[in-house]
């Protein structure tokens, strides 16, 4: 019942592949990003339709039902998730994609109808190797993504998790996985691979994925999500090789390549090298993380004190962080900024590239609150302005303004570019508690005599400050 000839199938896949290239191209620039994403979605729908009409497929009603189930699970999750929790949702989507690719490769390897190019043993071995790679890396991507999800959702500690022998266990599990993958290739000289062997490979690879992500500190998790995203892309490419499907090969390779570049760009934006992100905790441990004494005095103020500081300033720079987003205080901060501007005060937003939980996350959140785009200043642009600023208002941020990134070699964030709020005349922190930030390190700036702290939920504190400014 195949309606499409192989030629039309190939043309359909080619059009879909072009759509994916245009999608990535479009997503790289603000003006065309949304259109790009829509082109990508159109390409994906086309690819699925072509697949249905081009092969002799059995179980079509069941497959359609499974697609309906998947849509019913995915769309509401994507629609309803709070923008603050979006990074972990992306991680989860990535993980299930990796799992799907691993299943596809495992089924194809263990299937009874043999591998493509089955007549010549050479290309069958290559296909078996690609299949084993898909199962291995797909499983790593799945379990790794689950751990990143747990870290971001704070189901587990966001600190690096290390234990004695951890690196050896990781290395050992990876070596075992590779050995099993080789065994799969050898076993594939028959027509199909034993399911037990594939299961063993998947289980060991799942373990390796967990051990791979556990030692990564909270602040570095986004980089790992991006890396696992590239991994999943490569598994999809390899599964394209196994299935002799050019579209999967092209789409997976595009994602793998662009994901690798994106991972490096993200790491550069955070001033981290990829190796220190992944293996930093193995070497450094958490020795530096234990900060100096907690009982140093801090200067905490009332909302009225903060209102007076702000209301009689000439220039205020707001530094929003993840805490602002968690408290859903984007709209309140904008109200405060509007009030201050009405008093003739210059208000800017200093946006750290990794404010929030992922590069660009904060821009999304503030755009949601209709903060004018012109007021959002990127780090390099805003840093020279701090020395002429009266008040730097830090809302729910910590690591991105921590001078330890410049002054304390060995701190987990050392070398990360920061917003230089310490240059401002006064610094006001709105914080929930003295708890350290996502990277888990102490911030000396909190104890500086020019720093005032206002404890409490960011939204409640801001609402009080807004009311106090109104009555000035």
């Amino acid at each position, binding site marked *: 019942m195949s309606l499409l000839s192989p030629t039309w199938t190939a043309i359909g896949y080619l059009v879909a592949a072009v759509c994916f*290239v245009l999608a*990535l191209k479009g*997503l*790289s*620039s*603000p*003006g*065309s*990003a*949304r*259109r790009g994403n*829509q082109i*990508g979605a159109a390409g*994906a729908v086309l*690819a699925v339709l072509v697949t249905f009409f081009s*092969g*002799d*497929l059995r179980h079509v009603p069941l*497959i359609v039902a*499974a*697609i309906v*189930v*998947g849509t019913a699970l*995915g*769309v509401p*999750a*994507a*629609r309803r998730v709070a923008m603050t929790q979006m990074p972990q*949702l*992306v991680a989860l*989507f*990535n993980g*299930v*994609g990796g799992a*799907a*690719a691993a*299943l*596809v490769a495992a089924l194809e390897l263990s*299937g009874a109808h043999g591998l493509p190019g089955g007549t010549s043993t050479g290309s069958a071995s290559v296909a078996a190797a690609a299949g084993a790679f898909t199962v291995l890396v797909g499983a790593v991507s799945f379990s790794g993504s689950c751990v990143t999800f747990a870290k971001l959702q704070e189901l587990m500690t966001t600190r690096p998790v290390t234990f004695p022998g951890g690196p050896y266990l990781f290395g050992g599990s990876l070596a075992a996985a590779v050995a099993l993958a080789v065994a799969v290739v050898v076993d594939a000289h028959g027509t199909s691979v034993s399911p037990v062997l594939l299961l063993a490979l998947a289980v060991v690879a799942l373990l390796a994925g967990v051990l791979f992500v556990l030692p990564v500190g909270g602040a570095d998790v986004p980089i790992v*999500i991006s890396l696992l*995203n590239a991994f999943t*892309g490569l598994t999809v490419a390899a*599964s394209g*090789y196994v*299935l*002799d499907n050019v*579209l999967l090969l092209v*789409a997976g*390779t*595009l*994602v793998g*390549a662009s*994901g690798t570049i*994106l991972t490096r*760009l993200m790491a550069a*934006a955070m001033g981290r090298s990829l190796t220190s992100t992944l293996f930093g905790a193995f070497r450094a441990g958490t020795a530096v993380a234990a900060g100096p004494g907690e009982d140093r005095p801090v200067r905490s103020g009332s909302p009225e004190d903060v209102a007076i500081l702000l209301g009689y300033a000439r220039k205020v720079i707001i530094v929003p962080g993840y805490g602002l987003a968690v408290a859903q205080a984007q709209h309140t901060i904008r109200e405060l900024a509007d009030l201050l501007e009405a008093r003739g005060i210059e208000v800017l937003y200093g946006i750290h590239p990794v404010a929030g939980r992922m590069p660009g996350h904060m821009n*999304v959140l503030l*755009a949601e609150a209709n903060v*004018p785009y012109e007021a959002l200043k*990127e780090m390099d642009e805003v840093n020279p302005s701090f020395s002429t600023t009266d008040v730097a208002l830090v809302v729910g941020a910590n690591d991105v303004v921590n001078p330890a990134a410049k002054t304390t070699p060995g701190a987990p964030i050392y070398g990360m570019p920061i917003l230089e709020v310490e240059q401002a005349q006064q610094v006001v922190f709105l914080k929930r508690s003295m708890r350290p930030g996502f990277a888990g390190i102490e911030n000396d700036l909190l104890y500086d005599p020019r720093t005032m702290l206002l404890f409490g939920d960011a939204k409640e504190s801001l609402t009080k400050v807004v009311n106090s400014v109104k009555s000035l």
Partner: protein
Amino acid sequence: MDGIALLTIFVLAVFVGFEVVSKVSTTLHTPLMSGANAIHGVILVGSIIVTGQTDSTVGLLLGLLSVVLATVNMVGGFVVTDRMLQMFRGRGQRPVAGPRPTPGSGPGPAPGEEGTR
């Protein structure tokens, strides 16, 4: 298709992938990652093919599981990326894309309170 042809396509696609994203601002890192994530959801094509060829019950069940997972990746990925990018419209320079031909969300401003700033 023979191995060399596939290898050629692979290598060329690597370069295209490097090239298209080499100059992207930090603002777009998150949506780009999410969009790329949705694109690899096209593994759904592989899931459909494998499931459609299987003749064992276990194979069918695992195949259908992979169809569900791949669909979640693909559909969810594109929807969440679109939601993210929706936030970027109506700011600064020119609004992002005039007509928005999303079938689901309908024409005009989204049902939220936000117009064009």
